[in-house]
């Protein structure tokens, strides 16, 4: 069923009682060409592009709970392509281009809002780093603007400009960055994939891998054994656990990141703003709540909930940047489990086991990557070669030394 204005009018005539479910909740068949493990944004996008771009339609997405209840439904929805390294930037820019056309492509309103992402800087050294990053972006054909203090003040007059310790000196602005509605991205990809024949199987946890002569030929699941030509793992925070089923150890630690939303207020913050002197990023949802977050809690966790010291630290950073939010009440906070890789960059690659493919290590930046991650993972699965913008995301880079450490932090996942 295509969505359109015409459709809404037609359904209105029958009292909106004839709308069909957006996607099919399937039962697993005995086998598929490709099994995608994980029904988050990345898994569903992978299935969609496999069917749409490569004509691979015997595809199942196996999700242990309900789709979109993992990180895809827990993030702060920021999308941007303001990366420094040549191994990263073209990938995120492809993602941004896909975001820009996603609603037409999926025939679904994913509420992409290019309201701009502004990274503030507070010292000369930080300014130099952002100038360098802006130049790197320009070299890759990505938009970036350096704003001075007065330009920032005109845009966001309510920031704390009198802070003596962390004076706002300016910011790097990517106007094409912004936000998208995370749940809608999940539903949109699910609907489009389902429409092309992909089976979306919920409450189906992968508990083992079927091996025949060194090759992975299927999965054991809570809904029985399912065979597959290829098994593609996209389980975000649970990558190490699924890899352990195959006896593999990954360069990944699972960490919890919290996010927060305030009570709703009138339109206040026009873009995404990040504080450079602490770790704090904020935007305002269309409902009016301020959606914000900060650093990881900092220790391995599969708990999907964090601890109080980080709540205090994030709120203190927010207060340092915009003291006015001190009057707002916090509505909710929650946590998501992320696969923090050892260099802070993702992996889209084959594994040492034939038939097993890995999409992992997205850290806390994987929402913006959803379209390109699915696109490039599908490319790898269908063509047996990496997409040109994802060539640096190799699993063996930790052995060869070709790391992608955007922040220059070293092998400390809790600091990326």
């Amino acid at each position, binding site marked *: 069923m295509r969505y359109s204005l015409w459709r809404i009018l037609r359904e209105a005539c029958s009292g909106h009682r004839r709308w069909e479910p957006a996607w099919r909740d399937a039962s697993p068949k005995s086998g598929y060409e490709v099994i995608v493990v994980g029904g988050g944004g990345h898994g569903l996008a992978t299935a969609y592009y496999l069917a749409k771009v490569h004509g691979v339609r015997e595809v199942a997405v196996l999700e242990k709970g309900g789709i979109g209840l993992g990180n895809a439904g827990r993030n702060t929805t920021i999308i941007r392509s303001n990366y420094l390294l040549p191994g990263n930037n073209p990938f995120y820019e492809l993602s941004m281009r896909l975001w820009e056309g996603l609603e037409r492509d999926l025939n679904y309103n994913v509420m992409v809002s290019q309201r701009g992402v502004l990274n503030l800087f507070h010292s000369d050294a930080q300014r130099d780093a952002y100038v360098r990053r802006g130049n790197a972006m320009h070299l890759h054909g990505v938009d970036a603007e350096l704003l001075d203090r007065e330009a920032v003040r005109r845009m966001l007059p309510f920031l704390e400009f009198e802070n003596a310790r962390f004076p706002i000196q300016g910011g790097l602005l990517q106007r094409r960055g912004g936000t998208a509605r995370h749940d809608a991205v999940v539903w949109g990809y699910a609907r489009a994939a389902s429409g092309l024949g992909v089976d979306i199987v919920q409450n189906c946890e992968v508990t083992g891998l079927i091996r025949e002569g060194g090759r992975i030929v299927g999965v054991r699941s809570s809904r029985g054994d399912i065979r597959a030509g290829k098994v593609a793992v996209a389980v975000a925070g*649970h990558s*190490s*656990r699924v890899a*352990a089923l195959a006896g593999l*150890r*990954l*360069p*990944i*630690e*699972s960490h919890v990141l919290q996010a927060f939303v305030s009570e709703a207020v009138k339109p206040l913050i026009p873009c995404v703003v990040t504080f450079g002197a602490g770790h704090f990023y904020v935007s305002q949802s269309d409902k009016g709540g301020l959606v914000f977050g900060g650093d990881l809690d*900092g*220790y*391995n*966790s*599969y*708990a999907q909930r964090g*601890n*109080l*010291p980080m709540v*205090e630290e994030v709120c203190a950073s927010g207060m340092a940047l915009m003291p006015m939010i001190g009057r707002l009440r916090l509505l909710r906070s929650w946590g998501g489990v992320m696969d923090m890789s*050892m260099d802070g960059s993702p992996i889209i690659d084959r594994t040492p086991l034939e038939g097993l493919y890995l999409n992992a290590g997205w850290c806390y930046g994987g929402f913006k990557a959803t379209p390109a991650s699915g696109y490039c993972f599908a490319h790898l699965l269908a063509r047996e070669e990496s997409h040109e913008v994802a060539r640096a995301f190799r699993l063996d880079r*930790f*052995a060869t030394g070709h790391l992608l450490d955007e922040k220059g932090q070293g*092998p*400390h*996942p*809790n600091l990326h």
Partner: protein
Amino acid sequence: MRIACPFCGDRDLSEFTCFGEAGCPRPLPDREDAAARFLEAVYLRDNPAGVHRELWYHASGCRSWLEVTRDTRTHEIRAVRFASEAREA
């Protein structure tokens, strides 16, 4: 989460920083298989959902390195000892 430091007693999480999985000793660089061992020690992790042995630093306390045994699903702490004791054991 609170950690019972063997020297300072029961203290709030905010006094500590985590250094990740315990028991990844630095390999001898002149061994023949040093490259593979460094890969394991520096980058590869078990990352279990369950009991995890990890290093914590009591930064805002006695500045000891601790080995904490903790459940990563519940944040429940099973045991704490000085990292130096763990090494000798």
